[in-house]
């Protein structure tokens, strides 16, 4: 059950990166009636509304109860620099925020607490914090506060994992990180202004720059190593968001009161209670009004749909499931991926055939009740960078057989199973993760479908693997794994280098190609500050992946929130999901 939170941690992280996610809790159940026989190629991302429909006037002194759906308590590290689990992040969103707001494409806007400007050579970014942005104790939020966040994350005493490669691109950051300098030379502060100078231009700054400040005045007395365990972070956190923390019941609940001084205007609610609810009781709690807003997991979708007093909002999650082929190994010395000379799946017709052989439309409809749908690419469809012209590999067993015949994979000894091009026995080991009720039937289903086109696929070790063991298998480049099913949670930056580049340790397929290197580099080059250029580059890259099929993208997924009908102004869409000052209640 816990695995769910991994993928959640990942998709909700503010930093721009691609993150590891696990396939998670979904239950297999009967088929759904709706949208049968729909066109495979059409990616429908608007199956659910994203906004509440209640247009009523919010009442004075309203109170809202937010359900934090988790089977474990939140850890209570209430700061984005330090928190570890997604539950803590959800608490933080009520009382604190990043300085820059994002639009629905996760690109920074000037609507938030600060505005930004990029210099002509694209190497310098200047943030100007708005005048009325103040911490809850009345002190103004300044550039020094944001600088302090960088000083903390770059420090040797910092034990979190937020120091990333983009930060290292700031001038002087590495020197500071290695302890050779006391300051970061590329960061200049002037009151409410802060300027970052990068060693080289990278368009990812428009989606992935760290803009979450630390209240320096308040925190400077605490040594950096002790910050994460200090009461100032855990018990009396101060932010500049729409609500103030009034009281924390450790691990269970938080009481918030409105921050009347909020820079975007006074919140429409007087107070908010956030409490942890077990996934098994979410629907019941929504039904009887104990909760006003809560995430609804896929296994409760059918029940939640029936509730009269609850509106279901949905959006496409930043994640995709895929089936990957094993091409080689990771060379630790050279720090790059190396493909075998003769990989087992070297023939792309074989890989394409395996993609044509499986019916993901049916998997999404029947096993996931329509909450998952065929993936056309490895860039999720909620980005403008998703190549809308690409079609997912459609279920076509005849085509699969044709391709296999062409590639020389034919059945030479008439046992119903194809031998490889040299006439030798051809067995495929398939590794897949456990974790939900549907994991096993899903893996079996794929195996069955491959068998129908004459391929002999077996589950690795005859069983599914637990999350940690599974990734251990992949990391060790276990030669026994031929193909595997896994998922990636991706974050706000479209740059796929983190899991696709030649040097990426997380490139578990170990697939490399010069064209791939070239396109990935183009996607983060200075020219890519021109959006159309970047879109074109990523379109081309996705075509390459589609043609070469180093992985078969299988499914995209919806995530859902249940919202009581008395709630108004709630928008589930990315970038607006946490604008709690807009939310009110009408009863």
């Amino acid at each position, binding site marked *: 059950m816990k695995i769910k939170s991994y993928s959640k941690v990942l998709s909700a992280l503010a930093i721009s990166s691609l993150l590891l996610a696990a396939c998670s809790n979904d239950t297999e159940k009967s088929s759904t009636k709706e949208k049968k026989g729909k066109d495979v190629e059409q990616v429908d991302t608007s199956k659910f509304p994203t906004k509440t429909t209640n247009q009523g006037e919010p009442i004075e002194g309203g109170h809202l109860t937010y359900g934090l759906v988790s089977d474990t308590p939140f850890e209570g590290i209430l700061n984005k620099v330090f928190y570890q*689990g997604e539950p803590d992040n959800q608490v933080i969103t009520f009382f604190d925020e990043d300085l820059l707001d994002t639009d629905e494409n996760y690109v920074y806007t000037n609507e938030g607490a600060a505005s930004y400007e990029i210099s002509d050579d694209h190497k310098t970014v200047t943030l100007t914090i708005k005048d009325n942005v103040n911490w809850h104790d009345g002190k103004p939020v300044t550039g020094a506060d944001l600088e302090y966040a960088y000083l903390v994350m770059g420090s040797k005493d910092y034990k979190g994992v937020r120091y990333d490669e983009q930060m290292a691109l700031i001038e002087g950051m590495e020197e500071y990180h290695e302890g050779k300098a006391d300051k970061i030379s590329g960061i200049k502060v002037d009151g409410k202004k802060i300027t970052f100078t990068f060693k080289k231009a990278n368009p990812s700054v428009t989606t992935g720059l760290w803009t979450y400040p630390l209240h320096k005045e308040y925190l400077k007395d605490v040594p950096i190593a002790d910050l994460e365990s200090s009461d100032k972070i855990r018990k009396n956190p101060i932010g500049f968001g729409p609500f103030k923390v009034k009281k924390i019941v450790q691990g269970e609940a938080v009481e918030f009161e409105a921050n009347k001084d909020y820079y975007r205007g006074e919140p429409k609610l007087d107070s908010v209670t956030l409490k942890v609810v077990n996934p098994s009781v979410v629907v019941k709690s929504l039904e*009887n009004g104990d909760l006003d807003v809560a995430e609804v997991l896929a296994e409760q979708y059918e029940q939640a749909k029936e509730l009269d007093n609850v509106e279901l909002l949905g959006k496409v999650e930043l994640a995709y499931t895929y089936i990957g082929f094993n091409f080689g190994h990771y060379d630790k010395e050279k720090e790059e991926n190396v493909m075998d000379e003769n990989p087992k799946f070297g023939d792309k017709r074989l890989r394409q055939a395996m993609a044509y052989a499986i019916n993901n439309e049916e998997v999404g409809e029947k096993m996931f009740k329509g909450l998952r749908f065929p993936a056309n690419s490895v860039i999720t469809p909620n980005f403008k960078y998703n190549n809308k012209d690409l079609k997912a590999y459609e279920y076509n067993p005849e085509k699969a057989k044709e391709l296999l015949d062409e590639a020389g994979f034919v059945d030479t000894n008439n046992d119903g199973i194809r031998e490889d091009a040299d006439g030798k026995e051809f067995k495929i080991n398939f590794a897949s993760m456990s974790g939900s009720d549907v994991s096993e039937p899903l893996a079996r289903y794929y195996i069955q479908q491959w068998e129908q086109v004459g391929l002999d696929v077996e589950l690795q070790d005859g069983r599914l693997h637990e999350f940690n063991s599974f990734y251990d298998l992949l990391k060790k480049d276990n030669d026994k794994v031929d193909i595997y099913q896994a998922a990636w949670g991706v974050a706000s930056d479209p740059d796929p280098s983190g899991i696709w580049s030649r040097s990426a340790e997380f490139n578990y397929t170990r697939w490399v190609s010069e064209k791939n290197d070239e396109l990935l580099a183009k996607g983060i080059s200075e020219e890519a500050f021109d959006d159309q250029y970047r879109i074109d580059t990523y379109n081309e890259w996705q075509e390459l992946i589609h043609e070469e099929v180093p992985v078969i993208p299988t499914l995209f997924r919806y995530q859902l929130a249940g919202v009581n009908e008395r709630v108004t102004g709630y928008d589930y869409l990315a970038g607006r999901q946490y604008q709690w000052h807009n939310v009110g209640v009408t009863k």
Partner: protein
Amino acid sequence: MWKFILRRLLVMIPQLFLLSIIVFMMAKAMPGDALSGQEINPRANPAELDRIREELGLNDPWYQQYIRWASNAVQGDFGVSYTHKTPVMDVIEDRLWNTVFLALVTLIFTYMLAIPLGILSGRYNDTWVDKTVTGYSYLGFGTPIFIFALIMLFVFGFALDWFPSGGSVDSKVDEGTFAYVVSKINHLILPALSTALIATTSTIQYLRNEIIDNKIKDFVRTARSKGVPESKVYSRHILRNSFLPIAAFLGYEITGLIGGAVIIETIFSYPGLGQLFLSSVSLRDFSVVTAIVMMTGFATLLGTLLSDIILSAVDPRIRIE
């Protein structure tokens, strides 16, 4: 007596030592660590992750880690939880009291149910009263606790709305007030009752069988033939003897409750030790896992000692040398 207790306490040291080695090795044998499952951030330099691992000492061989851990543990320092970022003992302390209260209330409910029902069914064995009670016990044996707890939750927590459906306290009341105590108790009743209704069945059966056994013993027959009234026969002779094994079981019962609250705590979103243990295992928070196992191990050893002491105290036939 004191010698006996002292000896038992001394024997605990090698026992705990062995337990700690086993637990530590098993924890380390789990694939992954606190950094691997939680946040593999492909943008972060792998070197950066390695630096953190190095700093936390996760790259050292297990025996070095063990020695480091053990020498601190002896001094009561179980290290820092990577997930919670605070000393392990602080994390545990927060949860421990919740679990202890839950265990206590559960124990009270268990005996409140077991004693009268056990006596009734033992005294009037093979009547319809006994058959009803026995029927209930069998049902209790056969019902999985996680299903039963969910049913209780839906009936009393949601349908009837008599009790809160999760948590350990209402976040709106202030600590230290009377309302706070009431709210705490109110949150305890449903999980405690759910466990007790199931856990009580074995105790009922023990008691019933003891009473039936004792009813035909010679000393009871003697008492009857002396003309002791029936009610006195029961209260003086039969019950006293029948309670012996139940009392002896108390120690085990307590440790069982502390260690076995995983399911109940998860269902009722009750932040206790069981829930903490489960999440720490899946997040590979080794320091918390080992500390909890050591604590429950220690509690079990103490519980058995307690049981032996109680037994010798209530049963004059047993003398501890």
